[in-house]
């Protein structure tokens, strides 16, 4: 099975994240870049499926040169090779352009299964997997908390508000996985060393047959009109519990007409 796992480098959620004042895009230099946490579950699931069914795991990332660090981490976990879609023309691409460029790259790579994390911790749009399924004409098997492959049949448990839906489809398919589907492995020393020798192919937009006029900030379908640091919340009242903390909290709730 030919599995492509899409990963994204995002600013570390533990550091202060900013937008650039010039073009209002993410300031990638302001914070350390790390692998999007939810993508680690996608990499782990890809590796488990390969271990069970054979095949190959290719990492695909789109991002600036710095995103190579993210590729290395996925390779160190055990992925076989990587494709890095990187081109200055891609800077500022929104979800629509990103899904277009990624879909073009996926068509070039070829796949039986594409696996993504359910969302990125920076933009948090949660739309990419659905957009890829739409563009690739492949079944959308998103928000999976369990994935089972049997020959060309694939079944997932899709997380819903009330529990889950059992969903069936035929490969090739696009899967997104939710947190907790598995416990992502830590790269071993051997894995980290091996990753250095694994092939990483860099694709520019022309290599992936991506139309330059359809990507980047100028091609975006939406714009940030303005942004500002959120005003700090007005300081609240904090009391020390002296045996009546619950009563005081109830008084506060009553003053706000919650009770």
């Amino acid at each position, binding site marked *: 099975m030919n599995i492509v796992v899409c990963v994204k480098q995002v600013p570390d*959620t*533990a550091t*202060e*994240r*900013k937008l650039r004042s010039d073009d209002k895009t993410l300031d990638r230099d302001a914070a350390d870049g790390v692998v999007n*946490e*939810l993508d680690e579950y996608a990499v782990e699931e890809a590796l488990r499926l390969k271990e069970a069914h054979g095949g190959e795991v290719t990492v695909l990332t789109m991002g600036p040169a710095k995103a190579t660090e993210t590729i290395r981490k996925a390779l160190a976990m055990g992925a076989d090779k990587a494709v890095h879609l990187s081109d200055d023309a891609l800077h500022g691409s929104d*979800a629509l352009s990103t*899904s277009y460029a990624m879909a073009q790259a996926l068509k070039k790579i070829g796949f039986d299964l594409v696996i993504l994390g359910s969302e990125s*911790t*920076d933009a*948090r*749009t949660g*739309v990419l997997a*659905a*957009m890829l*399924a*739409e563009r690739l*004409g492949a*079944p*959308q*098997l*998103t928000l999976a908390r369990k994935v089972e492959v049997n020959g060309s049949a694939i079944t997932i448990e*899709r*997380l*819903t*508000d*009330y*529990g889950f*839906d059992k*969903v*069936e*489809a035929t490969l090739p398919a696009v899967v997104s996985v*939710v*947190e907790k589907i598995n416990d992502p492995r830590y790269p071993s020393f051997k894995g980290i060393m091996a990753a250095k020798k694994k092939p990483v192919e860099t694709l520019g937009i022309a290599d992936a047959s991506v139309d330059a006029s359809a990507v980047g900030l100028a091609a975006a*379908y*939406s*714009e*940030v*009109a*303005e*942004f500002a*640091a*959120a005003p700090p*919340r007005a300081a*609240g009242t*904090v009391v*020390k*519990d002296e*045996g009546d*903390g*619950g*009563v005081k*909290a*109830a008084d*506060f*709730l009553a003053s*706000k007409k*919650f*009770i």
Partner: protein
Amino acid sequence: MSEILVLVEHVDGEVKKVTLELLTLARTLGEPSAVWAGPGYSETAKAKLAEYGADKVYVAGSDEIVDYVVAPKAELLARLVADKSPAAVLVAATSEGKEIAGRLAVKTDSGVITDAVGLGEGFVADQSIFGGGINVRSRVTKGTPIVAVRPNSTAPVAAAGAGAEEQVEVTPSDAARAAKIVERVKEEKGARPELTEAAIVVSGGRGVGSADNFAIIEKLADSLGAAVGASRAATDANWYPHQFQVGQTGKTVSPQLYIAAGISGAIQHRAGMQTSKTIIVINKDPEAPIFEIADFGVVGDLFQVVPQLTEEIEKRK
């Protein structure tokens, strides 16, 4: 005034609160048309939609629309966008709502904005990003604006609309039938409101200490008719099911009232609840960062304070 499509969220034939919020919001910007996808439509549902301002109600009541993952709903909306040329399409910013919005954006070659917490003239959307640290105003610049609006972004206000019903016959394409839902499994969650929709959320964290102890969080929640949430520390420890996790990698909630008990307030958690209107914190550590965003905080043992609060609420009912 121009037509605005609002995709109806419904469960067991009942219109969900977020749809009433979206209709209320749409009324300030144009004439809302509700779009009902799937079975369960009734006169009662129509009346509810009209009560909150739906001028039209498009009904595509076939089972097939909900038998496959997301794609048929996006096809239905794409067809209505083509036929009716609406000024905008609003969906609820649930996981599925955002997926529908994403596919619709590709189909109609239109821009999409997700997780709006407000929407004003020219469909300029307010968003709160990076864990609530930055407020952004953005707008769609191409095609028909598609906006996924977070539940609790506005209070639903009734104002009658005509509620003119129009049946829409749609058959999902072969491509839209590629991912078939073969079984729906309802996991027990009792009578509590849904986490992302709830007006009040009571969450427990590391300080709760065990799965059994979550009973005191649930009791407080039930006294207020609230949903129960949990921090990542609590779901990682398997004290509470993962689907109730509030935070960066879990659900984002924006209720009228959020009560955090035994939660320190790491960015991971704040990212999921910072836009709550009123925040109450109960924590024994006065240095816990969550106190920085509290409207009212109690420094104390949650095992004393929470049951006392529950008892007081019951007493004052």
